[in-house]
């Protein structure tokens, strides 16, 4: 898909995000806005998938796992805008009896979601397991996953990292939302990740880097990552992003990690984001 088209979709997704969280005065806009360009590009340009006929097993399809489940608003919007479920359903986010739970879940059968997430650190293991099943099934599709940088403080991530290299799980492309911020502040101030690139390399991963807000660069780095699939080495992309990207007052701070805008702030945000596909 043309980059300009993807940018239009991303603008609408950002509108969806701020409207969803504002409507219920809860949710996580910061990371959602930061990962919008990536997830839009992934779902509309990169992944081989079948939004019209969701199937849990996803045989013959690429799979995506959101490990940092709190950025559910961006995922829900991208899923709805890609055709997994009606766009109008975004209005039910975090409301009673909704399929759009605060954090992604499978029990209410929302198409597009294959695993609950929210308790951090679990998604890489899950993605690796799904990737190994693909190998057992002679299914050459790819498994994608997304993780927060703060989430990398969870020990299970590094258990999974060690395992992936030892077992040569080379049909996974993991991505880290490397925005440098988490709830309590800057990641460097909470618990520094040190040299993240060297860490992943030391764990045996092929590490790529990209700007998560340059859709052309996302396309080219993802293409590069796909070309490395099958090399016997797991692949990870450190994606530099800005928490709150697209809404000026949410950028440059960790404060909008898990806070919803009020009515006035929502109007301000929507004035900065073009309505391209029509609001839900």
């Amino acid at each position, binding site marked *: 898909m043309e980059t300009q088209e993807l940018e239009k979709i991303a603008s609408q997704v950002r509108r969806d995000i701020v409207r969803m969280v504002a409507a219920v005065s809860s949710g996580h806009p910061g990371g959602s806005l930061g990962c919008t360009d990536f997830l839009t590009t992934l779902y509309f340009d990169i992944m081989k998938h079948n939004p019209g006929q969701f199937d849990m097993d996803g045989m013959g399809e690429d799979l995506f796992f959101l490990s940092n489940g709190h950025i559910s608003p961006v995922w829900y919007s991208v899923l709805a805008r890609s055709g997994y479920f009606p766009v109008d359903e975004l209005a039910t986010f975090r409301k009673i009896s909704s399929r759009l739970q605060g954090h992604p879940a499978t029990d209410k059968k929302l198409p597009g979601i294959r695993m609950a997430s929210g308790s951090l650190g679990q998604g890489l*293991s899950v*993605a*690796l397991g799904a990737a*190994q099943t693909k190998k057992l099934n002679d299914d050459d599709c790819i498994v994608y996953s997304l993780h927060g940088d703060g989430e990398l403080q969870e020990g299970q991530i590094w258990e999974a990292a060690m395992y992936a290299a030892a077992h040569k799980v080379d049909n996974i492309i993991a991505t880290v939302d490397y925005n440098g911020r988490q709830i309590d502040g800057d990641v460097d101030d909470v618990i520094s990740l040190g040299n993240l690139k060297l860490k992943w390399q030391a764990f045996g991963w092929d590490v790529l880097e990209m700007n998560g807000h340059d859709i052309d660069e996302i396309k080219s780095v993802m293409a590069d990552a796909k070309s490395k699939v099958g090399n016997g080495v797991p692949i990870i992309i450190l994606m530099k992003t800005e928490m709150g990207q697209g809404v000026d007052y949410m950028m440059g701070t960790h404060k909008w990690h898990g806070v919803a805008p009020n009515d006035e702030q929502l109007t301000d945000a929507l004035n900065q984001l073009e309505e391209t596909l029509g609001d839900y």
Partner: protein
Amino acid sequence: MIETAAIEVLGKKDTRSGFGEGLLEIAKRNKDVVGLCADLTGSLKMNAFQNEFPERFFQVGIAEANMIGLAAGMTIGGKIPYAGTFANFATGRVYDQIRQSVAYSNKNVKICASHAGLTLGEDGATHQILEDIGLMKMLPNMTVIVPADFNQTKQATIAIADHDGPVYLRFGRPSVPIFVKPEAKFQIGKADKLIEGADVTIIACGHLVWKSVEAAQQLAENGISAEVINMHTIKPLDETAVLESVAKTKCVVTAEEHMKNGGLGDSVAQVLSLNNPVPQEYVAVNDTFGESGKPDELMGKYGIDTHNIVEAAKKVIQRK
């Protein structure tokens, strides 16, 4: 003296070996069965499976949280993962991973937990989990199975492949009498009545089932007719078996290698309190950690041996 139907002892073996044999057998029949283990392949008796199906065996190292996540992910695409380690590391250590990625996500993962309870023995309390039945049965979607002997563990291991959903399968280390017939068919949620009786119902699981049979024989010598039920499935509990038996005997002893809090006894008590409140005595560990020792010594010291069941039966009959 009351006659109890003779229960033939067919041999003696550890239940974990039943798991190992069952895994190999179901893997031969079902190509979707895969195995994962956290550096305890020998202890879990998974070697035969590993040797026969190396491409379907995944050594995860000492990383149980990752093992649970991997297993959950492997179900996407139709695999049936059997994830094995010691019961302590299969539950308490990874509770949140099981809760979110297995139970809440309702994935077809079989958590296979060996060396459960005091009978792990000399390694001591760090390894002797006595809370795992409670932890697992509280999780929605989770089935909890505690087979009684080698044959039943093997049969249960095979049977759970056909159950679509999370299962916690608990077994152990020591060699114990085999009395379930090798041709018996394991049915999840359907209790086995081993001995008919009229005066007291003894409901047990795991290693305490044979102890209950021994207790029934001793009670018979004292003129007490005890009914013995092997409640191999803690969840879903066979409520009908409980209620039909107590309708006759009017009192219950529950026996398990687990804490009183949250185990089989509490599940039975809930059924009784809601339907037919009758006196109940617990034979279980009373809110304490274990310690190093031989399995038989530990069962004696912590009050979960044959004579404890006998005494509990006499006491509960007095309370009727």
